[in-house]
């Protein structure tokens, strides 16, 4: 679960960071088993009566790779083939049961990016929290 959360940050990483991540796999045995492919995932949401329904589809890109004897799967939002590939490679690197020479570097890069993303989300949450309001009732109400 932790490794899945680490690769999730790839969805919003800057493009140059995605390339930096892919560069880590340059001298590995990375094999693309399913080239990046754009498609749709139908979103399912429960309403307030616990009825599941489909508000619409989300454009995503998915890819599969093999690295260090382990399969990797990556899916990201949007039409982003390089990003999907990076996520699949990172997924394999972090989950391979045996030794993987790039695992620590991948983990470090993604951990840094996860912190950066959390910091951005906190900044957005702080901006929203600054609009918190407490209404007072008017006299006589």
């Amino acid at each position: 679960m932790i490794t899945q959360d680490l690769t999730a940050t790839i969805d919003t990483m800057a493009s140059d960071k995605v390339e930096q991540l892919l560069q880590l796999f340059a001298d590995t045995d990375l094999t693309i088993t399913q080239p990046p492919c754009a498609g749709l995932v139908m979103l399912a949401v429960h309403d307030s009566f616990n009825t599941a329904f489909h508000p619409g589809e989300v454009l995503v890109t998915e890819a599969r790779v093999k690295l260090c004897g382990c399969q990797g799967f990556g899916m990201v939002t949007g039409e982003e083939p390089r990003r999907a590939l990076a996520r699949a490679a990172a997924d394999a690197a972090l989950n391979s049961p045996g030794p993987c020479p790039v695992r620590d570097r991948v983990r470090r890069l993604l951990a840094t990016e996860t912190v950066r993303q959390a910091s951005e989300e906190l900044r957005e949450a702080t901006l929203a929290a600054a609009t918190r309001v407490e209404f007072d009732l008017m006299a006589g109400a």
Partner: protein
Amino acid sequence: MGYVAVKGGTEAIEEACRLFAYQRIKGDSAPLEVAQIREQLYLAVDKAMGEGGLYAPDLAALALKQAAGDSLEASFMLRAFRATRQRLGTSLATDTSGMRIIRRISSAFKDIPGGQMLGATSDYTLRLLDFSLLADDEMRREAFRERIFRHLPSDLDIPRTFPKVIDILRREGLLAELPPRPAEDSPIPDLTRQPLVFPAPRAAKLQALARGETGGMLTLAYSSMRGYGDIHPTLGELRVGYLPLLIRHPISGETCRVGEVKVTEAEVLARMDGEGGMPRFSLGYGLCFGQNEIKAIAMAILDRSTRAAVPESPAENEEFVLYHIDGIEAMGFCNHWKLPHYVDFLSDLDRLRKSQELARNGRQREADHEQG
């Protein structure tokens, strides 16, 4: 009435398409980048995505550019695009309690657990033109950014998630529940693959509303609010935020977060039901892609109004509502009147002339009869 195909006009049509594209670029202004539309006209992008039924901000921005700002055309393009892409799967069904919220208000309770957050809104402003935007440049933007962050408090208590307002009513037994839904493992109806049938399953109705056209839904909901129906809603809660897109990882089998989807959710409380002799509030539910508050509220009102036991107005008639809110179908039908109907019309014209001739002959016979 039958349709008769025409042919020809290929060159003129191609020229007309080129002329349409030329209208967009004939001025001296700088080319509009897709990223500019996505970032600076984000509400238009959100609307197109919701009505197109496809969450793809970059493509929605592109569609708006290509359609020269026509939101119906843009959503049509998105829906056409989605038809060209394969379905890779369905997300795990998620509820909205874990939504990353950026705006949250209630008009039912002044004080709600977690507090009200106005978020990014122009609700409380005068709708006056801001002429300072005429001088929008990077320096001014930087100064604005600096100002907004300089005054940001650093000691704010920021909850990760917020409890739902309606849960307060639910706990006290003040909310009417719906009849039991189908078994958990039964597939969710999907209008992109199945036709809409009536009475519509709740899931199908919500899907139709979620991809409905904002203006059409507002019109119907407004008719109900004004008196053609009796849904006078109170907004239990309106939320804008990000829902995680979760799938089952195909290799590990674990839950995997693909990314986030921005949505607006509305829960309206409407008139009390007296079922079982126990009066309760009834709830209408709305959720759509992006930040589109009018649509989410209208959806919630229409969800509630179409549950009327005996429909007495258009907004209470489920079939009427669901058949008329799809903007792409509605604009398609309206647009088709622009296509050649020459033979149909000539036929009408011919019939009309003959009818007039018969009428004239009839009048003449009556006049002759009176004189004779």
